[in-house]
């Protein structure tokens, strides 16, 4: 009985100590687009690990569906809770402006993570982006070039014909293919659109193989397309004469790396975005970082980070390349 009371009082003291530190700690909440998305789980992992190191209190909440206004009640609740930092991957470029303003008027730092809110930059403190997106097109061409000795017919398998990100990247690919002599022997024969639908992407990839028997490489800058292309090339037994690369997630592509169908593909690191966002939020909070364009700060393992125009912060300049050597280090 005495022992039990001892445990109980120890627990009570522990609880009080916990409450005391929680009050002193900077409270950061991250609101992803929706729950259960492994990509955003990886950002959450970055936040959590960085906060464990930096001594901030980190929580995450999210709506079930990624609808424009579904995050508003969650933001409102966090304002009432009195957090110090709201980091969010918004479902809309402008629907959240009012609630952001309300948070900031209470002294809460609002950080956009993973994609910016174009046209609404005045309603947030800063935006953390995964990568300099202008490097994606050239980096993809260079990666495929290195896989096919910079020689042969190549094709692009994209998402929908109106996918804005993909169309910008494809335009960059075309520019670099035409202007850079290193790619003079690489000929872009066609651009196919798989609509980010597995069936359509697969049929389009099969048609590429049928229509271009000498095809040396396929770039698919979309996660559904690159997996479909890899599956088709595996089924046709065309690797390694036909190389597939693109933008994919490690978990989606792991099997193809392991069985040799795909040598390498690219993406960025959502985990590092979380780490960077946590460091930035803490630095701004304790005054060690001035949130103004041109200012720099250091993040362990990520190096020196510069705050860009419009308070946009890039986590990395170039996309990360995943291959057999490093894929086991990633889980998203």
């Amino acid at each position: 009985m005495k022992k039990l009371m001892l445990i109980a009082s120890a627990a009570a003291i522990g609880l009080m100590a916990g409450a005391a530190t929680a009050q002193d700690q900077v409270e950061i909440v991250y609101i992803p687009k929706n729950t259960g998305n492994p990509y955003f789980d990886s950002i959450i992992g970055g936040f959590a690990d960085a906060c464990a190191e930096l001594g901030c209190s980190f929580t995450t909440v999210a709506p079930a569906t990624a609808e424009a206004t579904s995050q508003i009640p969650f933001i409102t609740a966090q304002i009432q809770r009195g957090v110090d930092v709201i980091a969010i991957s918004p479902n809309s470029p402008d629907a959240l402006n009012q609630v952001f303003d309300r948070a900031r008027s209470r002294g809460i730092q609002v950080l956009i993570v993973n994609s910016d809110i174009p046209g609404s930059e005045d309603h947030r403190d800063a935006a953390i982006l995964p990568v300099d997106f202008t490097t994606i097109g050239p980096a993809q061409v260079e990666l495929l070039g290195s896989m096919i000795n910079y020689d042969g017919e190549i094709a692009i398998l994209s998402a929908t014909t109106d996918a804005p990100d993909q169309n910008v990247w494809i335009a960059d690919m075309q520019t670099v293919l035409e202007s850079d002599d290193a790619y003079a022997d690489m000929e872009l024969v066609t651009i196919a659109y798989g609509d980010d639908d597995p069936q359509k992407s697969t049929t389009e990839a099969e048609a590429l193989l049928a229509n271009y028997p000498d095809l040396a490489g396929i770039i698919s800058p979309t996660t559904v397309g690159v997996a479909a292309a890899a599956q088709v090339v595996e089924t046709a037994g065309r690797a390694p004469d036909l190389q597939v690369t693109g933008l994919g997630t490690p978990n989606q592509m792991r099997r193809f790396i392991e069985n040799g169908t795909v040598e390498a593909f690219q993406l960025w690191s959502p985990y590092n975005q979380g780490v960077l966002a946590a460091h930035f939020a803490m630095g701004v909070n304790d005054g060690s970082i001035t949130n103004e364009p041109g200012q720099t700060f250091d993040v362990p393992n990520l190096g020196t980070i510069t705050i860009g125009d419009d308070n946009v912060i890039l986590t990395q300049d170039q996309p990360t390349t995943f291959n057999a050597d490093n894929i086991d280090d990633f889980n998203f």
Partner: protein
Amino acid sequence: MTALGRLVRVREAGLVVMLVILAVVVGAIQPRFLTIATLDIILLAIPLILVAAMGQMMVIVARHVDLSIGSILGFASIAVGMMFRDIPEMPLWLGFILAIAIGAGLGLVNGLIIALFRLPAIIVTLGTLSLYRGLIFILSGGRQVDPNHIPEALIRMAQTSPIGVPWIVIIAFFTALLAYVFLRHLRLGREIYAAGSNPDAARLRGIRVNRVTLVVFSLSGAMAGLAGLMYAARFGYVNPGITGVGFELTVIAAVVIGGVSINGGIGTVPGVVLGVLLLGAVSVALPILGISGFWQDAIYGAIIVIALIVDGSVRAGGLVRLVTGRGG
């Protein structure tokens, strides 16, 4: 009955003619279309649709429609995919049985709601289309089952078999054969036509129409469940937000092109097989012809509509009326 039989045969002949026209026209523009390699692509494009179309045609013959099959396909594939992931030693055959059973169960729920509450199938299955999709997200926590968690043996089924044609193609045509025997030679199969032609007359003849409803929806669900596992084999992963989305529209289009009357009571398995083949051939022909992605959806849709108009006109004698200007 013989007049009806003749009409149906005409319908099938019409589909064969359309397939031949498609092959000749596309082959003339792009000879590569008329190769074994292209046939392989078409054969690999149709198994999921063919299997699900067998269930859907029974539902439509019984004067209902099942809009929920895309979500049933998704649910069965996610559930079984998660089992493969979490219990790696689970045998493949058990996965097939579970996928079919889960699909049949969800289909039975559709049938029960429709039969017990006397509600229109189009509304009930529109509801369960969302309901089952929602359950997929809850069950999976929004996470897909990644390619490295799908058994290699299952993926191989979409790539090889001892006779050269991938297993999933063989399974699909075998399913069609079973459906043919069931609808043509079994009493229960004939009752589906009777119930769909005239439910009241069927009741008077002692056919338990509600039982027919339960059977067709359970079978449609079971077929969608089987298609779910074939999806995992074919594409190598299953995703809660992608797998099976929009699938019902493709399948219903194939069934209707195959000559199944949306008013119930009419339709044959060979007709539906031809409808699926026609749709599959068109979907492969467009990229083989190198038609721009901007145009593909419109052309694909236009071909479906043209096929229905030509076919419907032939069947109703409308084309004769149109040409001769006389009533028919």
